[in-house]
């Protein structure tokens, strides 16, 4: 009885959100899955044809390659730079000014960023994209790491010191293992923010930017503009599926380390 009641309350509070998510995302996404197996014009069953078209599409392959390249370079860089800065900052008192300075790019309107970008990175290449990402997100990452470092029990570090561990040993054997829990969060949020780099890439480079920075988002946008919904549907299902599996695996591993 109590369980049923609790379930009722839970559903009551979450109902609006759940209804919205179902109406605006989940049900239409099911429709997208259905469309991914059909031709766009006549609506006939097309089997895996759309998927085959998408996977063999040169532009799609380029976009996947570039996106993976970006994610693979930018996220580790951001995570490591953020950690290094946070480790130093965690020993300094009164760092609120520093944190403000590093967080400020989050408040900077994208148009401002783009103006400055055009002034200095007229090349619009891969590196400028990475720099722009680091510039915007380092503060965010530092704050997350600092929260993780603050949660390490002081006694643990003191005990290690008493046992004769030097600073470096303390870092490797005590602090870093304690921070493993933060990695999941930080990587997930860095990924979330890495997808937003498309704004800069698009605003500076347009729909067809340099070959190095043609991202997945570009190709989706171009298909959308050209009404190539069959390809878009198949690619949406592919990307969502890969992300879903990746997140589950990542969640599983980070819980079982």
């Amino acid at each position, binding site marked *: 009885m109590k*369980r049923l009641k*609790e379930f009722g*309350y839970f559903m009551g*509070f*979450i109902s*609006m*959100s*759940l209804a919205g*998510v179902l*109406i*605006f*995302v989940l*049900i*239409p*996404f099911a429709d997208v899955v259905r469309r991914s197996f059909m031709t766009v014009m006549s609506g006939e069953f097309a089997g895996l044809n759309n998927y085959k078209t998408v996977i063999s599409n040169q532009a799609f392959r380029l976009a996947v390659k570039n996106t993976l390249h970006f994610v693979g370079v930018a996220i580790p860089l951001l995570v490591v730079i953020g950690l290094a*800065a946070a480790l*130093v*900052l965690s020993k*300094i*008192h009164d760092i609120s*000014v*520093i944190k403000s300075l*590093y*967080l*400020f*790019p*989050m*408040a*900077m*309107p994208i*148009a*401002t960023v*783009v*103006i*400055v970008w055009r*002034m200095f990175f007229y090349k619009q290449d891969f590196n400028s994209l990475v720099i722009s990402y680091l510039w915007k997100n*380092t503060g*965010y990452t530092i*704050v*997350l790491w600092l*929260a993780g470092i603050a949660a390490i029990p002081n006694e643990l570090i003191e005990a290690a010191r008493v046992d004769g561990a030097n600073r470096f040993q303390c870092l490797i054997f005590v602090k870093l293992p304690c921070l493993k829990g933060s990695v999941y*969060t930080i990587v997930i*949020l860095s*990924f*979330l923010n890495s997808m937003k780099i*498309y*704004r800069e890439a*698009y*605003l500076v480079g347009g729909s067809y930017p340099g070959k190095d920075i043609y991202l997945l*988002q570009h190709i*989706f*946008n171009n298909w*959308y503009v050209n009404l190539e919904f069959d390809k*878009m*549907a198949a690619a*949406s299902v592919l*990307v*969502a599926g890969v*992300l879903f599996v990746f997140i589950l695996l990542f*969640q599983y591993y980070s819980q079982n380390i």
Partner: protein
Amino acid sequence: MASETVTKFIFIAAGIVICAPVFLVVTGSVMGQGDLYECLEPVFMHGTGFVSWKLIPQYPTVENYFHLLFYSPEFFVLFWNSVKLVSLILLGQMVVGVPAAWAFATYQVRGKNVIFTVYVVLMLLPFQVTMLSSYLTLDRLSLLNTHWAVILPAVFSTFPIFVIYGGFRSIPKALIEAARIDGAGELYIFFMLGIGIGKGGILSALVLGFLEYWNMIEQPFAFLEDKTLWPLSLYLPEISWMQAGFAFAASVVMLIPAVFVFIMGQDYLEQGIVYSGLKG
């Protein structure tokens, strides 16, 4: 400690470099045509070389702002579009998201973890992946090319739920139990205890949300054809280089509310970042 001062100095110096774009935009906004042309010419005319920049303009002028305020009625329309979109999105997110976060934080029910994981995945899906499904729904509801096409999907974003949830998690379970024993109803507990103690998370979600939607690009681009419906964030990058001064002044106007929210909400911004750490 001397070494601490040195480290601090290095970090602050780097931080000032990080914030430099603001100075560039502000000084650019008070430069006249001639000054700007001289500074920007190497890049925009020849595509090579570097811009030269004067920290203090030789002949400061307010002509750009004058032009913006008195000769650009469309600017105000777009500015108010931005204000309207952002306020309605944030309002909607709170109405929908605060109770949802409360549900996650307070009740232990079967299947909660499944919904939670689905929400995490939805949060991480890039806009473009769900663009087609949003388009199909908005088309069916005949909302395309109206402000609702941008507002409604954003209202049901799952990101703010995790931030608000972070605030609710800090409320001790024992406190809620005690209120129940005293005979308080669930709604009463939610409004008095939940929102009272968990308002940090709510404010954090508002600050993060403001900074996000004030800079919206993809959603209005995909769902708003009529340029008079556009928010400022989408319009500004379209200003051509012949009007650089105007673009700078417009950027400054766009920057002011963001800076205001940033300064007022700085603590909540930090807290929000930590809260978004989605611990299940």
